[in-house]
């Protein structure tokens, strides 16, 4: 329990640090890019919205930096991330529509990559120097290639030339499409169809890490005495492998927490390539429009999501490893 509270304390600190960083990020840069962006976009948003933004960013109000910071924190506490300067919509509304797409895509792809990668890693470690080991450098290719290049290659050769899967949007939106949003068969099928390639790109890019990590941990664990005991007892091979795998899995779970930030940012890049209706496409549009409130809002939301997933992984770790419970 103390461990969990300690971790929770750390995540609160991290969240606070991220908010503070977000506050100072643009204000400290030369030439106040925020004020410049606001000045450019006055035509598109209503005076009331502009006033709200000026309040959020403390522009033209002659407040001290400290009181600006307090105002900013107060606004965030009320769930106010400002208004998009390009779309004149509250940032929270925009993110609210995007977030389910991103969460769905990332969680499915990550779950598939983690489970498959761990299984392959166990087998590669168990049968060291087998065929699977020869595949390691191949899977590394996918890991070493930046997400967007891998996404492009899939989009082009599987989607565009191969014609196997649609290459843009989250569901069928073309003319003559019969799909209506909601929980119906056509829509869900269309979402799966459109999500396949982006999810495959994310999964391919992250699977190598799980395979290599699990293989190496498996090999180290297999030299432990208790595995030898299990084998000496005459247990069937797969039971011995399971004994080793269960203990080799723990570092993978703590690595899972660490890598989630990389996977999420990578998947955002993938979304841009596939024009997927999630946070990725949103931040890409925001960059083109110099829409700082949206950019910063997305950074905040991603940070909070990553921290939450980290905390969940910590809970899982504590539940699985008695040693983690004692450490404090």
């Amino acid at each position, binding site marked *: 329990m103390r461990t969990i509270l300690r971790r929770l304390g*750390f995540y609160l*600190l*991290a969240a606070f640090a*991220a908010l503070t*960083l977000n506050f100072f*990020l*643009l204000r400290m*840069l*030369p*030439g106040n*890019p925020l004020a410049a962006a606001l000045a450019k976009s006055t035509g598109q948003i209503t005076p009331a919205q502009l006033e709200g933004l000026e309040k959020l960013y403390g522009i033209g109000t002659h407040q001290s930096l400290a009181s600006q910071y307090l105002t900013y924190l107060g606004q965030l506490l009320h769930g106010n991330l400002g208004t998009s300067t390009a779309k004149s919509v509250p940032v929270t509304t925009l993110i609210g529509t995007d977030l389910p797409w991103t969460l769905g895509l990332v969680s499915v792809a990550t779950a598939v990559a983690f489970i498959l990668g761990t299984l392959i890693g166990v087998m590669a470690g168990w049968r*060291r*120097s087998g065929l699977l*080991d*020869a595949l*390691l*450098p191949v899977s*590394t*290719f996918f*890991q*070493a*290639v*930046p*997400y*967007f*290049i891998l996404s*492009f290659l899939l*989009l*082009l050769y599987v989607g*565009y030339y191969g014609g196997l899967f649609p290459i843009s949007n989250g569901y069928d939106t073309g003319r003559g499409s019969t799909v209506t949003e909601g929980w119906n068969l056509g829509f869900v099928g269309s979402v799966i169809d459109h999500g396949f390639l982006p999810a495959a790109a994310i999964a391919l890019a992250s699977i190598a890490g799980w395979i290599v990590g699990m*293989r*190496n941990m498996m*090999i*180290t664990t297999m*030299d432990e005495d208790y*595995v*030898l005991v299990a*084998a000496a007892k005459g247990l069937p091979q797969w039971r*011995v492998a399971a004994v080793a795998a269960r203990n080799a899995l723990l570092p993978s779970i703590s690595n899972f927490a*660490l890598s989630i*930030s990389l996977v*999420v*940012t*990578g998947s*955002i*890049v993938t979304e841009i390539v596939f024009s997927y209706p999630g946070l990725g496409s949103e*931040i*890409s549009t925001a*960059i083109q429009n*110099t829409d*700082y409130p949206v*950019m*910063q809002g*997305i*950074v905040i939301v*991603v*940070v909070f999501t*990553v*921290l939450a997933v*980290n905390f969940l992984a910590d809970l899982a770790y504590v539940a699985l490893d008695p040693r983690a419970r004692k450490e404090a």
Partner: protein
Amino acid sequence: MRYLRSTKVILGLAILVLFVLIALFGPMLAPHSAHWQASTTADTPLPPSGRFWFGTDVQQHDLFSQVLAGGRDTLLISLLAGVIATALSVLVGVTAGYLGGIVDDLLSALTNIFLALPGLLILMVVLKALPLDLTGNPLTIGAVIALTAWAWGARVLRAQTMTLRSQDYVEAAQVIGERKPRIIIFEIVPNLLPILASSFIFTVIYGIGTYATLAWLGLIGGSTVTWGTMLYNAQVGGALISGWWWWFIPPALCVAAVGVALSLLNFGIDEIINPRLTSARGTRGHRVRFVLGLTPVVRTATAAPAADLSLDLKKEVAQ
């Protein structure tokens, strides 16, 4: 050289050396300058031919020359990011691991915060706000990327330093009254070298990927042609939809090849740190079957050293 016994290391090194040579001499070998245009009126890209090996882009730039010239800044930026981030990670990780206590708590919290922050997204926001001439400078970009990349290495180095700290030779050095900075530099850091190399390689891979992504998003200014800006131009020029593959495939493959070469090297280093990880497939000439509970050893010693030794012994006896 046990490093050179691994096919992975040899292959990785070979590819890497090739690309370093391209980075050094590519701009000089290129038939044209990166901004040279074959024609200022035509606006259809030419496919690869004898005259233009990689074809041309919409503005009739020779893409072969651009690929040759584009490696220099791309590699420089990722190398710089790797060096700066590794230095930061040594500073933070080793200090935290060696000193322990409240310093460790603070530095570890800082490391964990940076691990959880989405570096690439923050870079997008910052680079968008920076003036374009500043983002065109390789030194700035390398340093800015490094700021988001040091945390992973710091964490690994901290853990390793903590195990080294309680080793006999370090404690011996403490007992005879060596000063802490000296112990860190001469006793701890040399033993961290393999891990340092591995984390450096990971950072360079991260650096090249991050730089290419930022450039592809159009967030990198300046007039220098790099593989990243080539991908951006191809994207803006509609190369994907129009099927002008020769425009974006070469720079994309170059980025990918450098990444793969570095990962292959990393495999080799991992196997040096922990020889058990060695895959028999990667070693030349020896097929080893691993059996549970036994650590196979590839016998490399021949009769020669033994003979030498006996000769020496005889000499000693004679003296």
